[in-house]
């Protein structure tokens, strides 16, 4: 039950991230933040935020049972790579 709520929250955060990507309020903003134009700084921070969100998703909303598959006959594992 709790994990289902967490999943919904995380997927909701993904939708929010999609909305936040469209930073129309910075369209003509020429200020500098952290030494870079704010329109660029915002999107760098956005990308780092997405990485953190994806880290939470793979930690708390990882689909289960995907590795429980039978390897088709004739397919052997290689020790390579």
């Amino acid at each position: 039950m709790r994990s289902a709520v967490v999943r919904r929250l995380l997927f909701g955060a993904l939708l929010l991230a999609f909305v936040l990507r469209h930073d129309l309020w910075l369209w003509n903003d020429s200020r500098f933040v952290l030494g870079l134009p704010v329109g660029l700084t915002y999107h760098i921070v956005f990308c780092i935020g997405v990485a953190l969100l994806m880290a939470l998703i793979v930690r708390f909303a990882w689909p289960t049972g995907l590795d429980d598959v039978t390897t088709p006959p004739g397919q052997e594992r290689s020790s390579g790579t």
Partner: protein
Amino acid sequence: MTLAVILAYLVLVLLIGLVSHRLFRGTGEDYFLATRTIPSFLLLMSLFGTHMTAFSLLGASGESYRRGIGVFALMASSSALVAPVVFYFVGIRLWALGKRRGYITQVQYFRERWDSDGIGLLLFVVTILLLVPYLLIGVMAGGITLEQITGGQVPAWIGSLAVCAVVMTYVVYGGLRGTAWVNTFQTLIFMILGGLAFWLIVRELGGLDSALDRVAAHDPQALVRGEGMRPLTLLTYACIPLSVGMFPHIFMHWLTARRAESFRLPIVAYPICIVVVWVPSVLLGVLGRGEVPGLEGPQASSILVRMIQARGITICIIEHVMSVIRELTQRVVVLDWGEVLAEGPYDEVSTDARVISAYLGEEDAC
């Protein structure tokens, strides 16, 4: 020297492909999917390298030269969000399905999913029609870049031929394992050299702060999205990375994963890799507007190469064959009887009446 470095690089890529062949197990699944044994880091690097290609280094700097910093929001942050989401919702499930059903190609999946040979055949034809121009563009871009880097020593068609030969050799010998190894190597080189080029150029420009201050003073439109970009364009560009799984080579890289868990790193690290590669490229493109102004069309895509060349070695050529001068030089000095007759860009100097007169003689000049 440049040519030697390029040759060494191509030989190294070939060697990686040939070494990977030693692990080949002699099965179709091993050739096409490395027997589904690719671990997390190789999966990240091969997916990222395959998806981003040379565009993110050369094309992104050229595009930001034309359109300013907004290119990052337009192209990079959309991929940073959408590509990992597609990996998570589609990639790992297709990997599991592929392993369960023994899929090796994308066509197999679509044919079985809809139980239709017609759909499989249609997809096969469509992907071939889409992939051939896609691959050719890469090969042509490789040739053009080689021509620019070597200052015309290697013509574009020979460069393209060399790229073709190297790629075909390591793909044919190494299969997908060789491809994943080479992709990883190339992506790492890409990141390291991109960072190095950025650091060197910015240092030459007196630091990032002062270089950006100059852009802000003379070309403020480069530092905002402004009227050159529309909000709707930003929205539509978010849809493009949705297609990531429909590239057959990316689909096949998904199938090569050792475990579902192997997707964790690519999903999390993808946005960071995009920042590492795209930010320097976009900034160099913007800084290039001030340093090499006036480039248009395809010329703008060479901005990074031009900036690197600009602070590398200055080459002085003494030559009277005008076609060579036209191809190689950025600045021409014409001497006549030991005195400077004209100086400037080739187009300007070559149409100067005094130069034509001195070069061809009074009668022909008339």
